[in-house]
């Protein structure tokens, strides 16, 4: 780009005066006159290049509403680097609302729950997975023994996959209760 082009603009009376008289962006004719002296910078030679060479494009489905928009995630070295446009998805045709466009935030978010946590004496404490699972399981067993299997309520999710859903239902059955429900009820 030429560094002093605005000086040239200022010095070219014709261009500037015509600009002043027309005010702003009104007359197409004046624009043409104006652009004769306008600095135009040629784009750098562009060739089709990859922003993330060697990345893998993973096709997946948006996790928000039930329209089921396609998502293409560009993954490089195990990191989701960019959300691409699933232009060819037959339902969404690349479209997203603000939530879908923000899907990558799931992995970028800084306020995810990072490790098992338990509230003990009014404070949150970090614990290990094994400790958490052991403790919960033991308590479940104790409750089942004392009050029967129907003392447990399970809430499944409309956000997990069918496979997980199927196993959540199966889990409830194996726990010996029909106290299982999910968001279809709202």
């Amino acid at each position, binding site marked *: 780009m030429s560094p002093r082009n605005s000086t040239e603009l200022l010095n070219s009376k014709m261009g500037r005066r015509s600009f002043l008289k027309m005010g702003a962006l009104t007359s197409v004719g004046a624009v043409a006159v104006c652009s004769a002296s306008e600095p135009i910078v040629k784009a750098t030679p562009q060739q089709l290049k990859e922003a993330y060479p060697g990345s893998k494009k993973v096709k997946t489905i948006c996790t928000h509403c039930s329209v089921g928009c396609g998502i293409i995630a560009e993954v490089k070295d195990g990191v989701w680097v960019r959300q691409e446009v699933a232009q*060819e998805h037959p339902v969404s045709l690349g479209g997203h609302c603000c939530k879908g466009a923000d899907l990558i935030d799931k992995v970028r978010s800084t306020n995810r729950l990072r490790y098992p946590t338990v509230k003990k004496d009014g404070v949150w404490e970090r614990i290990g997975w094994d400790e958490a699972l052991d403790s919960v399981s033991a308590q479940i067993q104790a409750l089942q023994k004392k009050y029967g299997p129907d003392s447990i309520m399970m809430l499944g999710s409309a956000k997990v996959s069918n*496979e997980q859903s199927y196993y959540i*239902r199966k889990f409830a059955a194996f726990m010996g209760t029909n106290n299982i429900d999910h968001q279809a009820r709202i």
Partner: protein
Amino acid sequence: MANTLGYGGMTNHLGDMQNSKVILIMGANPAVNHPVGMQHILKGKENGAKIISIDPRYTKTSAHADLFARIRTGTDIAFLYGMIRYIVKNNLHDKQYLDERVFDWESIVVEAEQYTPDVVANVCGCTAEKFLEVVKLFAENSPGCLIWNQGWTQHTIGTSNTRLGPIMQMFLGNIGKVGGGCNILRGHDNVQGASDMANLSDILPGYYPINEGSWKYYSGQWQVDYEWLKGRFKTKDMMEKKGFALSTWPWGVIDDENAENNAGTPLKALICIGNGISTITMTHKTKEALDKLDLVVFIDPYVNDAAVITDRTDNMFLLPAASQVESSGSVAATNRSYQWRSQVVKPLYEAKEDHDILFEFAKRLGFYEEFTRSLKNGKPSYEWPEDATREFNRAVKTIGLQGVTPERMKRQQENWALFDPLTLRGSGVVEGEYYGLPWPCWSDKHPGTPIMYRTDVSVMEGGMGFRAGWTDKGPDGKPVVVAEKNGQTLLAVNEPIGSRFKGGHLEITADNIESFGITLTAEEKEKVKGKNWKNDNTYILVNKALEAGLCPYGNGKARARAWDWADQLPKHREPLHSFRQDLVAKYPTFEDKKDHYRTNIRYASEQNKQNWVADFPINVVTGRIVEHMGTGTETRASKYLAELSGEMYAHIHPTLAKKYGVDNGDMIWVHGTGEGKIKVKAVYSYSVAETDIFMPQNFSGLWSGKSLVDKYPKGTAPYALGENSNQVTSYGYDIVTACPETKCTLVRIEKA
């Protein structure tokens, strides 16, 4: 809806709306809740469709409608009956269609008689002229598509709404038609799938009822002994009894009277997997329940906001689950399409995938081997998620998931560019398949059913009649064989083209299959002995039926009258907290219902407790906003979405606000009919009626004017916090599904 047509899924698909000539959107706001679905509606509009929006609010969808009618919340039935009455009176109904495919539609006409335009105007609160304009526009254009959403289901009479909607459509012959249909737009990304997979207290995967036969069938599928499984339950009765629902479980904790419905015990522990429980009504009761429980476990990628709402100080576990993009599997879109969701990245931090957490629990609870036996299916190890997909392919026969194999889904995902958005039909390597193999997909050769109940295509191309599987007993009290009423048969009169058997027929069983002109070899007969299409693991019955062009579930009539329900015909009933007390006597609600999802639910006694509207003179409509989903646990944690919509508000009409001396931007207290109260910002808006306020349901993190941000574990608080509108939503549950009443709520407001 399932009780009317056979299946409860959306009948058509989103792209099909481009073929419609008129689209009636009632109790739905796709521009906000399904923005990408709106794309197809708007394209339909460009193709000449008229869009009608009926809503208590002038929504973003209404802004794109050709016609908008404002009605009072919870009066859809009166409106629909009025439409039916007009349609019949003016002879606009498709009589041939009704005769061939609908059982007892005449009683609907009789019932509709009372809903004259003036009655509709009185009940719904719109003018009779407006009503007539709507019904004319809808009835005179064909095909017409009907869209609804939670605006219909979240009522005490939600199921009546969802029955009458399809019935009205059938009067116009719009079901089973390109560009027609009843399109219920689901909420979350996999509500359809989680319902198909029966994360529900009243069914088993594939909508198998929880009776002995189904449990036996599933013990077989899970490769466990039925007796062993029965032994896991307290009693056989409890095994076959509907459990608590998402909306009613807090009452199972708080009210001891419900213990007798629940095998003598109140609820003691809650295991919540990815569920924003503050979106159900009366959050302050949920809080009370959470406070009282012995053990609470939340399994979520983000901190569940219920964990900070409760005041409990002990024994509350937060287990980090992987988010959906860190997990793979299939998800069902609103149109019954199963799409493959690939894992993008490995679970972050210490998060584990949900099924892994369950497996870990199963190990510790001592049933891991039984739990994963069918997953391995004889092999030494299993491959997640494909083996689980195969497992439900095998198990879920009722809705035809046999053909939805992981291989096909992955191939479709690979080649999704080859599908036509308008018809969802594939070409090239996926030639003939429909995108997402919308169920029923009867076999791995079947292309899926993008538009249900079509009789103008053959069964192998997705054609079918209505399901001949109404209930155990016919209206005459005898088991359904070919039940009759006034000489009317329950079986359809027509059939999908290419069907070798003419006319309607019952579902395919080993006993009746040969009566439809299908012959089985002796060996095949032996294999399927005593089986029917729903539990025949050899698929012989289904495949033979398909060969003959018959739909495995039979070819019946849709039920306009559900003879086994409290309301045989859908009836308008005023909400429990009605804005029109004068109409309560004429349209009273149900009698109190005991043991409804193990809870004793008040109906009439709540409605008659007091003149609610005298003390709570404002009607509340709650709904979603486009930036947030559910409780917003995920979306409010996103900085960009929180920036766009970071504050709870109440839309209030300036005229109403004037009455209370509330200026734009003032804080107001909203008091619900329960004890809940919230402090929100009043925002002037003309979108609400002068008697209403609107509040988004997506906020949480403030509690009656107090911030809960300190109660989050360090570094996990979302960016946007707000009052939870469900603190003020009223008591009330659907008579059949126990869906909470969120849309008809009365409140009083005062300036803060």
